[in-house]
């Protein structure tokens, strides 16, 4: 089950997605978090944020909308109040950072660089619920390249750019991320969506729009992971409606090296460890010696592919200094 990503070894390919696990304390009440391959924290911003007014969530068919607004305690409280607990968990720690300007992203990356216990940073250039610093950094390649290059210079920590599906060509954004020096990309973040109350003729969410997540977005995420994995050499972390081991395995076969379980944590508190167990059972049943063998194993008829899926080679994953 061990698998390497961006030079970091993970005990298994299953992480939990940013915004769906807070900083671990609440979920530690359900199971030992060392069971997971890794945790991606809720986004940290420079200044603490209170988030959007209620209502912030709404159920949809096969999923939900959220417009939380990046509510978080800010980097200082994160370091003093959340990191000590996160260090005790015995699993890989990826800290997700979100800024409204390039300078904020750079400052966050810089301040987290020498913190003991952090294995990688996930750069959130794709949150749809904040006025600045979200979608405009991930909708087109140039702004993505600019912000990610700046973050690259600010730290030697392994960097993963979290990409938005709210774009015309996500593979182009992924290429920009690769060119900017990212060791990997994670996709997809949520899809922009909305809900309306006909009785009041008002939007349901206080922020008007929100991000759609859950099983409803899995087909979109699968297509995007497949497309991106073919276009870049850096490894991909898949996010989008993963509820069970079968979902996770489908994404790996499409080219993802690691997977993140997100919204499923809200409906079954043990969703993520069940995915870990399910992958392990599958490998045993199929007599597959290493989970790495599944990455990119998708068989597409040659006439449907313009170029074969490029699997990440080990030496290409190491940081170029």
């Amino acid at each position: 089950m061990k698998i390497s990503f961006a030079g970091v070894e993970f005990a298994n390919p299953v992480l939990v997605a940013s915004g769906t696990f807070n900083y671990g304390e609440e979920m530690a009440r359900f199971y030992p978090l060392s069971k997971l391959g890794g945790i991606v924290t809720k986004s940290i911003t420079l200044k603490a944020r209170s988030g959007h007014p209620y209502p912030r969530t709404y159920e949809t068919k096969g999923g939900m909308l959220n417009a939380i607004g990046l509510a978080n305690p800010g980097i200082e409280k994160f370091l003093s109040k959340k990191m000590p607990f996160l260090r005790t968990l015995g699993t890989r720690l990826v800290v997700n950072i979100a800024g409204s300007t390039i300078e904020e992203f750079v400052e966050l990356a810089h301040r987290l660089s020498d913190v003991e216990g952090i294995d990688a940073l996930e750069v959130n250039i794709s949150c749809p619920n904040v006025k600045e610093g979200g979608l405009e950094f991930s909708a087109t390649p140039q702004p993505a390249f600019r912000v990610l290059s700046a973050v690259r210079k600010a730290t030697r920590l392994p960097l993963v750019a979290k990409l938005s599906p709210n774009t015309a060509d996500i593979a182009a954004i992924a290429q920009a991320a690769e060119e900017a020096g990212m060791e990997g990309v994670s996709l997809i973040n949520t899809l922009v969506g909305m809900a309306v109350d006909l009785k009041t003729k008002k939007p349901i969410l206080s922020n008007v729009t929100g991000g759609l997540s859950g099983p409803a977005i899995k087909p979109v995420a699968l297509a995007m992971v497949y497309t991106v994995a073919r276009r870049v050499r850096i490894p991909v972390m898949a996010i989008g409606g993963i509820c069970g081991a079968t979902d996770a395995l489908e994404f790996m076969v499409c080219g993802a090296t690691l997977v993140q379980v997100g919204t499923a944590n809200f409906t079954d508190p043990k969703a993520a460890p069940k995915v870990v167990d399910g992958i392990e059972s599958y490998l045993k049943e199929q007599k597959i010696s290493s989970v790495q063998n599944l990455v990119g194993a998708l068989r597409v008829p040659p006439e449907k592919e313009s170029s074969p899926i490029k699997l990440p080679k080990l030496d290409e994953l190491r940081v170029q200094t």
Partner: protein
Amino acid sequence: MLNDYEAVVAQAKQLPGRMFFLEFDAPELAKKCGPGEFVMVQVEPGTDPFLRRAFSLFYTEPKKGKLTILGKSYGFGTALLREKKAGDRLKLVGPLGNRFGRAKKKETTLLVAGGVGLAPLYFYQQALAKNLRKDTHLFLGARSKAEALALKKLMPSAANLQLATDDGSYGYAGRVTDLLETWLEKNENGRPVRILSCGPDGMMAKTAEIAEKFGLPIEVSLETAMACGWGICIGCAVKSLPDEKMESEFPKTSDGYIYQRACIDGPVFNGRQVAWEADGST
């Protein structure tokens, strides 16, 4: 440790006013629950409805392994729950949230309930030793005689119960908060009093106003839309005045309030700090 328990419906009752009562066999969970806490109920296995539904615990019988909830059909998920039958299996995560505080010695507790908001307040009363229940009063407001009597029937051992109906067809004709005010005005023995309340937001806002007027402590059990119910989605935001003694997870808003999570910091909150909107909602 928290768990996801498979519970079996032992009794299911459809009540007037789209209300419903469910009794579950859930021996491990029943022993762990206290008044004020809630459970996240998975309505159907699978994705429709996608999210669970939150219910305050009504009362438990730990020795018999039973726990109960009281609900009202508002939408898709609750409509399905109202159709459940004995023998149906449902998953419950709990116990979640915080409990009502304990009364001080010689303090009288007034319980002000609106409709299915009765649930956690009756649990509070039942969880007390029998000799302490006489120091509590339960005021219950319902829309009509049919609803009032249906709820009363579910509480054979309610202590000091007074009923109010909106349409005057049973008990006091008018608001349940009138019953509270009347009691407070008559409170001649001058014992210290505190209030616990649960029901529609407007009712709780009015109760908090009365508590403020009489200078009394008040706890309210709030309901919000919830995605997870266990602290990780940060959706169940409740706006309240900051408590300078406690460190808040999130910073103050521009107008000096804080947002707390109903599933972690609540659902029981200090009713005098909750930011009630002008229309009485939270």
